[in-house]
């Protein structure tokens, strides 16, 4: 009898959807998540295209369902170390880092943060703000229980007997005695849904990222606009003023990576809505090469965003340069050199696989393609050459949320079809 | 648009009834639904007549509206379609109510042929009852003045009739008989459907005549009516805006709910405001008395009116049956028409104008009513 349980790696929207469907089918699901929170990249966005729905409101019911589902074992701060066996009979070794806060007694009141003496850059907020060594990445992140970052907590880095968080907790939820664990899980199928990382525009110095203070990446703008973000939703320059003109540059890293990341044109148009909502008078310029708006709804979205007031400019050889106290976008426009002064630049960087994708690929013994994405079987977009191991979402190929969800459901289809009879 | 110009012989009424009689002869209709004077001579009743001799006591424009025509028709076809062809001759407001009831599945229009006539209004029942014979005579004069082209509405008709701006045809009718424009010398048969053309062609009517005289006649009257309507409604507003004013205006109301029972649009088996849902446990009323200092009984009088208004205003055709029936002579129809006009405007909806146009509250459109959003 084969094991019908499943291991899902990555608790972003694809992982969450797959877990819920598999649990609904009566299977036990181990959902492995590297960070301390679920929701992946989607919960970083305030709104999603094309209906401009509130992203957190949209995924909240699924997240709640997941957290309350008895068939789903959520293992945060966890990573897959080793996979042995075959379809229907995998043995997976998982390393589970200690959170040092009890998931059941903690009520998420955040009293422990205030007193922590250590402040570091908050990765969730793309470095735009800081967090403590005991932290929840942002307001509303789930599970609503903090974790201790052992790379920065004084107890773990310097062996100091700092107890400020424990003392602040009314429920005695902080427990320094928790230990990292190594778990052995027996499952029948594995789904890789580890999502994507944003290409670092520091690799393309012509865009001035890291050089000029008001050049931002897409994720940085998302966090700026987010009502639960580091600026409380205010879009400001580093000097505290509001930008009067913004340039959004598409295709950052496209040439270097060698593929089109599918979603940037659409979210760059979404940014028009973001900017106009906070700064109705702002002047927006979108520099693009080819408009990618495939499918039945995206062209309409493009036209609606255009109406909000944006100059859409097709130009080549874009460079961000300094001019006086501000910046200019230099380009070749209609065959001639052009220079456009702007206060703020937003870059739409390529989507690439996660940094640890090569490691995970090795552990799972599945191949990656030339761009580093997990490689699917020809005409079987969720299957890998290793039977029983499936892939879905941006881990496989850059795609939007709708297609990621569809692909995760497809992976569930395959899992349930191949593991029809199971013990349980 | 073209029509058939028909010379009037004897009277408009007789001319119309003559043609209808011929239609029955030729079996173009099986039955006619038309008001007929009762044997006692003091009222008119809707009769489904197969025997054309009944047409002798029929009236195409009776002086009173005893029962709203739509109610009469709905009692026949609420439970399904008829197999026989029925021609129904009604006033424009009654036709409009028929169309609205049809959208509410209370009337099945298959095999029903709708005929309307320009309408000068109708006499209030209380006045008629004082002396029906005088009523018949005075109404003849009302029709004559109307047909002669006097744009001023006759003051002897129902107050809402004096401000009626829909006294001519609805596009949803099959055949309309225009009586304005030619001072009663000619009337115009105006078909709105091919069925109407076919049927009446069998009676020798050819719809090739120019109807601009009638159209002009209608326009003249309409201009005045619209002006009068806005004037009267402006005057009425201060009497009803604000809860205190409303309470004053309805202070005489005796909660009989007759307005609701005669209204053609009020089709519910049991009115919400008569149901258990508005009956509260005794404590509730005592609580209200305590918190407000007092409570008038029976309770929720204004709630009934406002509730009924919110349920039917979008389909209100302004026939005035409610005001006419009210034993306390409250200006129900005038008040309801005032609100009906404003709310129908909001949805760009004209009740009874088109069978295809769905009732506004049944249709959800993402992009509408921005004017009522909070900025």
């Amino acid at each position, binding site marked *: 009898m084969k094991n019908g349980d499943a291991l899902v790696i990555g608790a972003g929207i694809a992982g969450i959807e797959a877990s819920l469907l598999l649990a*609904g089918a009566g299977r036990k699901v181990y959902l492995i998540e590297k960070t301390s929170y679920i929701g992946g990249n989607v919960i970083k966005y305030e709104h999603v295209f094309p209906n401009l729905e509130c992203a957190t409101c949209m995924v909240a019911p699924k997240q709640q369902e997941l957290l309350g589902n008895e068939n789903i074992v959520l293992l945060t701060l966890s990573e897959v170390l080793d996979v042995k066996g075959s379809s229907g009979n995998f043995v997976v070794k998982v390393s589970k880092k200690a959170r040092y806060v009890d998931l*059941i007694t903690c009520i998420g009141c955040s009293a422990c943060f205030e007193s922590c003496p250590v402040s570091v850059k908050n990765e969730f907020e793309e470095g735009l703000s800081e967090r403590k060594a005991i932290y929840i990445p942002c307001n509303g992140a789930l599970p609503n229980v903090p974790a201790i970052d052992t790379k920065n907590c004084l107890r773990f880095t310097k062996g100091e007997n700092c107890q400020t968080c424990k003392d602040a907790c009314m429920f005695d939820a902080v427990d320094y005695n928790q230990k990292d664990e190594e778990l052995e899980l027996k499952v029948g199928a594995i789904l890789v849904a580890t999502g994507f990382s944003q290409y670092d525009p520091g690799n393309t110095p012509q865009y001035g990222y890291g050089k000029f203070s008001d050049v931002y990446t897409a994720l940085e703008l998302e966090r700026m606009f987010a009502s639960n973000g580091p600026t409380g939703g205010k879009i400001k320059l580093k000097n505290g003023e509001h930008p009067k003109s913004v340039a959004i540059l598409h295709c950052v890293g496209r040439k270097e990576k060698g593929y089109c990341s*599918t979603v940037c044109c659409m979210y760059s148009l979404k940014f028009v809505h973001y900017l106009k909502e906070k700064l109705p008078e702002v002047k927006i310029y979108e520099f693009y090469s080819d408009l990618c708006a495939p499918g039945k709804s995206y062209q309409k979205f493009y036209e609606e965003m255009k109406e909000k007031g944006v100059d859409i400019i097709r130009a080549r050889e874009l460079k961000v340069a300094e001019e006086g106290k501000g910046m200019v976008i230099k380009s070749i426009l209609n065959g001639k050199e052009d220079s456009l002064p702007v206060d703020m630049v937003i870059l739409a960087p390529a989507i690439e696989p996660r940094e640890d994708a090569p490691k995970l690929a090795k552990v799972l013994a599945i191949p990656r393609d030339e761009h580093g994405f997990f490689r699917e079987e020809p005409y079987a*977009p969720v299957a890998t050459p290793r039977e029983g191991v499936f892939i879905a979402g941006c881990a496989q190929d850059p795609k939007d949320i709708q297609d990621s969800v*569809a692909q995760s459901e497809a992976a569930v289809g395959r899992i349930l079809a191949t593991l*029809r009879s199971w013990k349980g | 648009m073209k029509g058939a110009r028909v010379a009037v012989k004897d009277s408009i009424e007789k001319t119309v009834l003559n043609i209808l009689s011929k239609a029955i002869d030729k079996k173009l209709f099986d039955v006619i639904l038309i008001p007929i004077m009762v044997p006692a001579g003091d009222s008119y009743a809707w009769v489904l007549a197969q025997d054309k001799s009944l047409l002798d006591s029929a009236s195409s424009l009776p002086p009173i509206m005893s029962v709203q025509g739509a109610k009469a028709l709905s009692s026949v076809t609420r439970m399904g379609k008829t197999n026989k062809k029925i021609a129904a001759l009604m006033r424009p407001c009654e036709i409009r109510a028929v169309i609205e009831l049809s959208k509410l*599945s209370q009337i099945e229009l298959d095999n029903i042929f709708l005929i309307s006539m320009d309408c000068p209004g109708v006499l209030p029942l209380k006045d008629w009852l004082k002396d029906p014979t005088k009523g018949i005579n005075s109404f003849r004069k009302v029709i004559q003045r109307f047909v002669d082209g006097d744009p001023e509405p006759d003051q002897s008709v129902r107050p809402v009739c004096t401000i009626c701006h829909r006294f001519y045809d609805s596009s949803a009718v099959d055949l309309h008989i225009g009586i304005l424009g030619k001072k009663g010398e000619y009337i115009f048969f105006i078909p709105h459907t091919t069925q109407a053309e076919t049927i009446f062609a069998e009676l020798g009517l050819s719809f090739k005549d120019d109807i601009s005289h009638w159209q002009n006649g209608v326009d003249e009257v309409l201009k005045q009516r619209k002006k009068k309507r806005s004037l009267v409604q402006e005057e009425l507003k201060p009497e009803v805006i604000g809860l205190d004013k409303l309470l004053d205006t309805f202070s005489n109301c005796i909660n009989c709910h007759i307005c609701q029972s005669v209204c053609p649009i009020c089709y519910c*088996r049991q009115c919400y405001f008569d149901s258990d849902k508005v009956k509260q446990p005794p404590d509730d009323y005592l609580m209200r008395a305590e918190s407000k200092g007092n409570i008038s009984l029976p309770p929720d009088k204004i709630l009934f009116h406002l509730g009924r208004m919110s349920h039917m205003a979008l389909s209100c055709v302004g026939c005035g049956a409610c005001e006419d029936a009210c034993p306390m002579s409250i200006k129900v129809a005038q008040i309801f028409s005032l609100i009906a006009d404003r709310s129908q405007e909001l949805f760009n909806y004209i009740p009874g104008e088109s069978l295809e146009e769905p009732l506004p509250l049944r249709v959800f459109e993402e992009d509408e009513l921005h004017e009522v959003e909070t900025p």
Partner: protein
Amino acid sequence: MEEKIGVYICECGPNIAENVDIDKVINVVSSLPSVGIVERHKLLCSEDGKKFLKQSIQEHGLTRLVIAACSPKQHEATFMKVCEEAGLNPHLFQLVNIREQCAWIIEDKERATDRATRYVRAALRRIPYHQPLEKREIDCNPDVLVIGGGITGIETSLLLAGPDRKVYLVEKTSFLGGKLREFEKLAPGMESTDKLLKHKIKNVEESENIKVFTNAEVKGVIGFLGNFIAVVKTGENEELEIKVGSVVVATGFDLFDPTKIPRYGYSKFDDVYTSLEFEKMNLNGKILLKNGQPPKSIAIIHCVGREERGYCSAVCCSYSLKFARYLKARFPDVKVSNLYTELSVPGKVYQKFYEETKAMGVDFIRAREIEIKEKVIKYLTEDEKEQNLAVDMVILTPAIQPSSDASKLAEMLKISQDEKGFFAEEHEKLGPVSTSMEGIFIAGCAQGPRNIADSIIQAEAVAGKILSSIIPGKKLEPEARTSEISEALCIGCQTCLEVCAYGAIYFDEIKRVSVVNEILCRGCGNCAASCPSGAASLKHFTATQIHQEVVEALR
């Protein structure tokens, strides 16, 4: 039996306790009628709290339960389960939100306490009117009806079919395979279509668990999730009744008719072909002009009908590249020009496919206002210059639109179409293959223009949805808080039917009244709100229940 209502106020740690004077609330509430016991607890949703509640319900013999705590969205389900375990009907319970709606938003403690008291009193006034709604269970048929035998229908059938689940695949033409049958190769790998299609079709035909009906059409479908009955016309006069639990619409697409845009010269000039016509020519090995000669210069025109349809068909840029390769393979010296507006090559593979195709010597010209004349194309370049391109063959890439019988099917299945005519998915982001009718799914180009790999994904996604929810032997538990229509009060105006988004109301032609299908009903309340006489009412949210709650809250 005498009512004994238990009221439990959760402190939620400091969240509620610090901002609401709970003792004061207890004071007020204790004296209210039928209230048997009022207690406070530190954290009711904790394991400890839940145990405490269960014990209390049983010990005190509570007949109804009010809990004042956090948002129902958070823990209504949690506490309902506790009620069930304690033997109390879970609908005889009300969760009052004094956290998100009081403690967390009102700074002044007195005001917050007043509001919390108000809300609890309101719940206590409402709860005597709660009904012990019963859980329902219905059988469900695991079999599936798949409409459309193209790649999407085939793929979903293969995944779904099993010894415990039959699939009925209905195809209106004589063959399985859909549009792919006429493609020689598939982008971007340029493998033979046969490789993909042949064995899949063989598997379908040989499967014991898939019954294929070709030259067949679905004539009608009635029923609901788990219990559909479909009527399929299989021959001249033969009709078959099939019982299934779910339906998949995979009816694919048709091409936009280019005669609608005369400047493309379709059916006006010789040698102007649509993409599907060209695929057929290529498959038959006959890429020839009308005069029998091989073409020397070919133009592929992108975006035909894009403006008219108002969307980008997603696949044309990529298959145009495939066409360029077909042509270069057959006629190495042929001139191939692509006239396009925006080059759309999303994803990890297509950019490389484009660059390599371009390197074969294929021209890419950004062009507007294209006019096809006899053997020449007039167009405007990016910088507004007029240009002419001499060609002897033109291939148009017309927009992908829903198949011609989409509207008929939509009506039959009571599913919606969007404004472009594609079947509408339940949720634009999170429900790509479900529809608002539970049990009816859509996939592939029937849902929106997409390429083969994405159609396969959607086909498999449907399988995922069905395999995870309609399980042989599993009973479906429909919503308990549904709507009901009083037969005595209903006068059949069908207003409720018109406003029901789930097709859960049907009209009984004989009784002339509207009736709720309690299994399809999702308890949204639209019908109850729109019924003027109150004949339609929503269980657990009746006019009386709401009225009592509101009146007390405002007192």
